[in-house]
């Protein structure tokens, strides 16, 4: 076998000095040509809309055809455009059709959405003259942005490799789920076109840097494109099979080829790390994303001493003012690191805190923390719990004072932060140790992950159907992005989203009332916008069985009731007034069997290897012996 592999490696004598420069010329020219043809398609579409005017019976077939051609032209340009200048594409071309606060502004200024996704909503109703007017107005805004856009960069082979992998991730998580076609709904032709452009460029690289991985891609890539051509039924598309059989192998091969090609790797071109671990070839795996990018705790600090310190602190009620409550009180290992309550019990043991305790497994893969997204990192979020009068009701100073009475803790801090000596016991290091422990609560070994990685052939057909629905007809995957199935947005996985669902206060109340919690609208001063009222972070659905009840207020006890809420169109579908609901308000039209399949899929995402980690005892506090009665995990 090895001999065959070696024999298959063919190298052309290539590259006198200018050959590589030439390849950049070719690739840059392709990029330019795609941008030009996108602009031309847009100009043409605008002139068609103008000639259709407000005619009662315009040539709808032709308009639709022109619109399709415009989208395909965009999709051919998109993969390199988004790789080189994601912000331009998001701000001006293909951002989500929702208002948002202006970035880095002097006050709360709203940026209204523009671009293809806004156009798509109007395009779905092109028969309506008013919608055609709106479409034209939006198209002209896009035209102006593209006119002003004068990018100054060249495309190199290494760009194509990395951008291709991003394109595969985009196809897997967004392309197959109709993320960016809110109006028309079928994204499969778009996805095919985007991958087609990728393959065109990879084929060109194949002529200058051939490799066995490329030869394997030559087998697989055309078949993937043919598959997409032959399977155009959005509701019935086998996403699980297509992802496992085509996209994941192509992702791996593309990485293998890049590394073998000698063309520079991403880390040789930039000094700042990114969230996606380029060196890792498996997507449904713990190695896919870089946890240190999210936790901001340096990987070098992850020593056994640091882990043990973080673990003890997580279960030690000494962190609370009355030495009774530990982090694990509301984040219990046996309950997926949640607590099974709609809202957690307050320190006074009578009232409840504001919201439902989220599970912590895989919570690290997030740019922001809390349901209202108010905290920046796992390091920063702790202070909110520590100072909240309903939670730990104390401050770092008092905690460090108590810990200083323990020789064991002193030693453990010194061992975890050896360079800092006696200064090691500090609030800063306490935050780091706990953040590091929580960041370590990761699991990517569910049955579904193993099937996706090809480690097992066993998968219940019902689960497979469930994934296909989750990522397709049921539209779950347009907010719970694969592979973490949380709100961290692909293909960069560096930004966390929140959504307005319109969750009621009590699902059975009559009349039904929207939960009054303002959510993100009152999280950060700079995000106090009306469209963020009742907006909440999108959590992962991994290990969801363990973390009932659901939603920010724990309003739903079962996955069936959650699915029913979504299937009926969220708050609006239930007759509530939710002016900025981001969930489609139309009914999803899922049958009972389909709901059963989706739940079966979510149930396979079960993987909690951390159920036996509660320490048996806690360090002695010599200076304050009465503290030595405290129980690991605290008393609730």
């Amino acid at each position, binding site marked *: 076998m090895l001999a065959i592999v070696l024999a298959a490696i063919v190298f052309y004598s290539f590259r006198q000095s200018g050959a590589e420069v030439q390849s950049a010329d070719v690739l840059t020219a392709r990029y330019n040509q795609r941008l030009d043809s996108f602009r031309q398609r847009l100009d043409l579409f605008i002139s068609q809309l103008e000639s259709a005017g407000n005619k009662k019976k315009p040539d709808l077939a032709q308009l639709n055809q022109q619109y399709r051609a415009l989208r395909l032209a965009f999709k051919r340009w998109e993969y390199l455009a988004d790789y080189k200048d994601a912000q331009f594409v998001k701000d001006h071309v293909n951002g989500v059709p929702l208002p948002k606060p202006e970035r*880095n502004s002097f006050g709360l200024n709203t940026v209204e959405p523009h671009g293809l996704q806004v156009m798509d909503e109007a395009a779905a109703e092109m028969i309506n003259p008013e919608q055609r007017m709106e479409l034209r107005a939006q198209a002209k805004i896009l035209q102006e942005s593209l006119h002003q856009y004068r990018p100054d960069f060249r495309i190199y082979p290494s760009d194509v490799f990395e951008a291709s992998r991003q394109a595969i991730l985009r196809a897997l998580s967004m392309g197959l789920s109709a993320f960016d076609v809110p109006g028309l709904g079928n994204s499969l032709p778009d996805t095919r076109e985007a991958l087609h452009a990728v393959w065109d460029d990879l084929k060109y690289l194949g002529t200058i840097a051939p490799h066995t991985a490329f030869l394997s891609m030559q087998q697989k890539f055309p078949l993937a494109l043919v598959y997409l051509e032959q399977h155009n039924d959005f509701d019935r598309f086998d996403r699980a099979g297509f992802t496992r059989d085509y996209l994941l192998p192509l992702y791996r091969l593309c990485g293998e080829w890049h590394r073998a090609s000698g063309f520079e790797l991403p880390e040789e071109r930039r000094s700042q790390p990114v969230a996606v671990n380029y060196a890792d070839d498996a997507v449904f795996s713990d190695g896919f994303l870089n946890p240190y990018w999210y936790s901001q705790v340096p990987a070098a600090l992850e020593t056994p001493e640091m882990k043990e310190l973080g673990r003890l602190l997580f279960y030690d009620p000494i962190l609370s003012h009355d030495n009774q409550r530990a982090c694990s009180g509301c984040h219990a290992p046996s309950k997926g690191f949640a607590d099974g309550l709609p809202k957690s019990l307050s320190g006074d043991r009578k009232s409840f805190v504001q919201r439902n305790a989220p599970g912590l497994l895989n919570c690290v893969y997030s740019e922001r923390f809390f349901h209202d997204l108010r905290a920046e990192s796992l390091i920063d979020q702790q202070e909110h719990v520590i100072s909240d009068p309903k939670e730990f009701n104390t401050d770092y100073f008092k905690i460090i004072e108590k810990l200083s009475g323990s020789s064991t803790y002193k030693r453990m801090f010194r061992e975890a932060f050896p360079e800092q000596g006696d200064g090691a016991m500090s609030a800063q290091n306490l935050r780091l140790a706990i953040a590091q422990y929580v960041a370590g609560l990761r699991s990517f070994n569910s049955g579904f992950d193993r099937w996706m990685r090809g480690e097992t052939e066993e998968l219940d057909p019902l689960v497979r159907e469930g994934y296909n629905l989750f990522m397709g007809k049921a539209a779950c995957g347009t907010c719970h992005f694969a592979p973490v199935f949380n709100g961290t947005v692909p293909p960069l996985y560096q930004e966390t989203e929140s959504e307005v669902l319109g969750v009621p206060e009590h699902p059975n109340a009559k009349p039904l009332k929207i939960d009054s919690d303002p959510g993100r609208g009152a999280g950060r001063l700079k995000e106090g916008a009306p469209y963020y009222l009742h907006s909440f972070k999108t959590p992962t659905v991994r290990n969801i069985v363990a973390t009932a009840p659901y939603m920010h207020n724990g309003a739903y006890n079962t996955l069936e009731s959650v699915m029913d809420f979504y299937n009926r169109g969220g708050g609006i579908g239930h007759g509530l007034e939710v002016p900025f609901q981001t969930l489609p308000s139309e009914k999803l039209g899922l049958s009972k069997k389909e709901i059963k399949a989706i739940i079966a899929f979510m149930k396979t995402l079960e993987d909690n290897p951390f159920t036996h980690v509660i320490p048996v005892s806690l360090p002695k506090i010599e200076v304050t012996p009465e503290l030595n009665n405290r129980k690991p995990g605290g008393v609730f």
Partner: protein
Amino acid sequence: MLASAALTVAQIPFPVSIDTAWTAKTIWMPKSPLKSQVIFTGGVDVVKTTATYGNPAGQTYAKQWHDFIGFTPDKSSSGDLGWVSVNHEMTQRNDYVGDGGGMTVFKLKRTDGDKLEVVEQSLADGRKGKFFNVDFANTVGETGMNCGGITDRANGRIWTAEEWMQTSNRTFSNGGANFRDTSNFTIGVTAPAGFPGFNGKVIKRFQNVNWMVEIDPVNAKAIRKQYNWGRAGWEGGVVLPDNKTVFLFEDGSPGILAKFVATNAGDFTSGQLYVYKHDAPSKWITIENNLDTLLELNTVAVRRGASMFNRLEWGAYHNGKIYITETGRDAFTYNSGIAKSGVISKGLVDGYKARYRVMTGNSFPGTDAQAADSVRNGRFFDYYGRVLEFNLATNEVRSFLEGGPYFATSNSQVRTAGYPMVHFSNPDGLDFMTVKGKTYMMVQEDLNGTSFNRMPAGLPITCETYFLDMDLANPTLADLVRITACSPGAEMTGAIAIDSKTMLINQQHPAVTNTPPYDNSLTYAITGFDGTPALSNEKFFDGTATFTVYPNPTARELHLSRRMDVAIYDALGKRIRVERDVELVNVSDFTPGVYFIRNTEGETLRFVVE
């Protein structure tokens, strides 16, 4: 498989490893003459607090989100430099230092070897320690989002500015998470805060923010909110050498430029406020000293036809002129609401015409009034911003240095000269520093985004600090000298020169790559400007075919003799970096040691980072 990998390597222009045995010409990159030293870390350093909200005086961790830095010279003891005041641009409830934002003050001295040290101090109110929070809660009322401010260079007086306009007690308080007290506020109940005519007046609590606020850094307490300068989204200001005139800059869009002239030098509690209107005969609109007017200064001024700017930030005085940053915005139009009454400032007209010239290849054919109409109607996508120059003799404003570069063509195969090395956008901090008799403008970016070439494609946001030689008659972007020591990836704010050796600068947001405790907000000093070779931006780029490299130790850059692709190898010959289509290589994050640099022709040079 190893053998095949090696085969691939041998055939590409930048093999993944090279043979280093070959002796090549060696270039030395001397140590940077600049040294940085961390002085004050938010969330880690401890501030001494006063008795607040019923809690006794004590201590707690300093707030974060450092922004403006004020400096008050005080050489009362040997080696002492003076008091540093640092803004905290945030709003958060805090039982000990007070709600909202705030400030921290400390005294610096310089010891042997140009080291800086924070000096232990005893304050009049009994506090002892190194860092002190400025007491606002018990004096003039809490402050919020302390962003910019004013250092009165002649007298060391300090004002802090409260950005982020508040419009209701509900959003201001945010359920008590930002500010616990939403009761009405009575002006002048604490001496000496207050003004003749305003004392005893009652305002809503949220109306007691968004003022310029004077503090006493030496006693770590606030003096007064400057009600007579008006309530607006103030960001910066300048006290003129006459000690009577104060210029004020509003971070708004439309933002206004205001001027206060004191009746008596040094006493800013009485005088006359004006707002700039470049098309009025006198150039200024007189604002009456009436609290209702002052509470709504921006609205009143624009309704009366004030000149409208696009987010003014910081400024400083130099040689009869004031230089002000106008940071720009990703989207704006002055075509609606009260902005219809204002006039488009000359800086925006200059900016629009400059962009028109580059993007179309022709000069703007119309009048300035027509250019102003284009700006008003949203035809100017002012994503770069500029530095403005205000001439005190003529009361005229103009664009001094336009951000950029704009590109004439889209997707040209022919690269734009200088880009991506030359790029300057969204200027924010501004100060002057005199080194060896030469005065430089120090200007810092605060990027609103990375698109439209504000960052070279694919690179993360990096807000750079530049020096500009003020002797140059008509400076262009190519004259900006990048000081890499100030730009490790995070947002840098507050740069201020404390003398000809040292500047202080803040890192506001932690950078992901920083190791603890440097993943917090930091104030640090960069020392050694007096030891730098002239801060010029000499271009070694001569376009010749010879492969030559010139080090710039201050900027930590290797300049190349022409635009090219290069790869860098470590001492063992392992490829560690590939730079495409560049005229220089930034080596600021290289550890000292031996490296090799190679071009696509395979020519290799050895360089040593000291």
